[in-house]
């Protein structure tokens, strides 16, 4: 299973290296969204400062939707889906591989956004441990849920639009918890934040578990 996961993740990252979609485009997109927010929400810092963690994570969610879309667009090319189903890859392995590849891209997005937020919104990064400690499980949870719902939309002509519809309500808790954790970290009160990080870890565990259990059902559908 882990071997399959490596194989799939390696393939996805290799494609990423070839096409530079993630670094070259998803990351700039995310930064752009941040700028747009800065633009649409009042020019005076008031709102932006209060809302920074929320905007950060909303932006991550949008980037995640894009990333998942991309990750599954390559799998839904004609014939590729058949080829995957005919291979001996274990479904949990494919799930973990896709999740890993999406997570790696998300981390890149988050780093870029973090820098963007500091520069553009004048956020004051403090509480590193909590920031990282909540961002990691949040990323894992988003990637796992994205990977699971992504495969549900594969092969449907309407996947571009169905995916966000399925995924975003599910990710609302991640948005909440991660926002709270970041708020706590930026406020310098990490003790308030750790329970949220715990919730994020719980979410990640639930979705990785569901993904491992259910992915096969969807992928192997005959």
């Amino acid at each position, binding site marked *: 299973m882990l071997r399959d996961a490596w194989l799939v993740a390696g393939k996805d990252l290799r494609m990423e290296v070839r096409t530079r979609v993630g670094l070259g485009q998803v990351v700039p997109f995310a930064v752009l969204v941040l700028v747009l927010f800065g633009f649409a929400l009042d020019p005076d810092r008031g709102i932006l400062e209060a809302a920074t963690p929320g905007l950060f994570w909303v932006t991550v969610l949008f980037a995640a939707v894009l990333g998942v879309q991309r990750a599954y667009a390559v799998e839904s090319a004609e014939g590729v889906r058949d080829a995957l189903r005919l291979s001996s890859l274990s479904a949990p392995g494919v799930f973990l591989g896709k999740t890993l590849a999406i997570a790696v891209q998300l981390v890149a997005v988050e780093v870029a956004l973090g820098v963007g937020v500091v520069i553009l919104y004048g956020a004051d990064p403090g509480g590193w441990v909590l920031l990282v400690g909540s961002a990691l499980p949040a990323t894992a949870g988003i990637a796992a849920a994205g990977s*699971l719902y992504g495969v*549900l*939309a594969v092969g*449907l*002509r*309407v996947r571009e639009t*169905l995916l966000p*519809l*399925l995924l975003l*309500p*599910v990710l*609302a*808790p991640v948005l*909440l*918890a991660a926002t*709270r954790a970041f708020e706590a970290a930026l406020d310098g009160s990490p003790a*308030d934040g750790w*329970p949220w990080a715990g*919730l994020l870890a719980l*979410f990640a565990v*639930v979705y990785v578990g*569901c993904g491992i259990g*259910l992915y096969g*059902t*969807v992928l192997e*559908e*005959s």
Partner: protein
Amino acid sequence: MSIGNEQTAGTAPTVPGQSAPTGHRSTSSPLTRVLGIIVVLCIPLVVWLSFVATPPDRVQGESVRLLYVHVPSVTVAYVACFVTFVSSIMWLWKRSEWWDLVGSSAAEIGSVFTALTLVSGMIWGQITWGTAWEWDPRLTSTLFLFLLLVGYQALRAASPDRSARSRRSAVVGLLLVPNIIIVNRSVEWWRSLHQDATLFRTDLDFRIEGLMLFTWMFTTAVGMVLLVWLMFHRFRVGWLANRVEEQQLSEAVAARRAEATS
């Protein structure tokens, strides 16, 4: 009550479970008729109880009567979601059409009741809070629940063939309850951990007792009967739709074969 098509159209193959007389052109059966009669008879009673028999609230005034729509409908919606959840698990285990139909019927009716909760809540809010919407935990999580149910149905509608449809919707249906719990809990915590929690409900902390309690419980019971009644019909509509599909299919198979031999 314009939910679903209680009266199905078209020629009717027989409906499962009930021994419908041949040529019977509806999805009803003795059992559903009994259920329907119960609902129909109880509704005037519910109206009477909630509008006449129960007193207006001290704080809420007459608007408290929305309680008897609002709270039962959310209870029914929860039950419907739970049914979908269980049916999805059962489908993944048994892979039977029966469970697929139970799950999807419940989800569809559940979304209607969730909408009813939202609408009644918003009307109520407009009256008592002076605003239809607050970013209150329950409201928000109810809205997400509604959207999850919309997503479930969009996925079903988008899936071309029956096996893919059942399979994918079972996965989403199975995730429904964990999703609801996570969304609901996190939204609650989101506020309660917040320093100045704006608890809109504190002033509504009326003690429900006596006739009000009875009315509430009675309405909920009627809501449940309504759910069961609608589920029966929706299930049968789905069942018949599948049968019609199969019938059309065997005709299509025959036609295609004939085309081949000609």
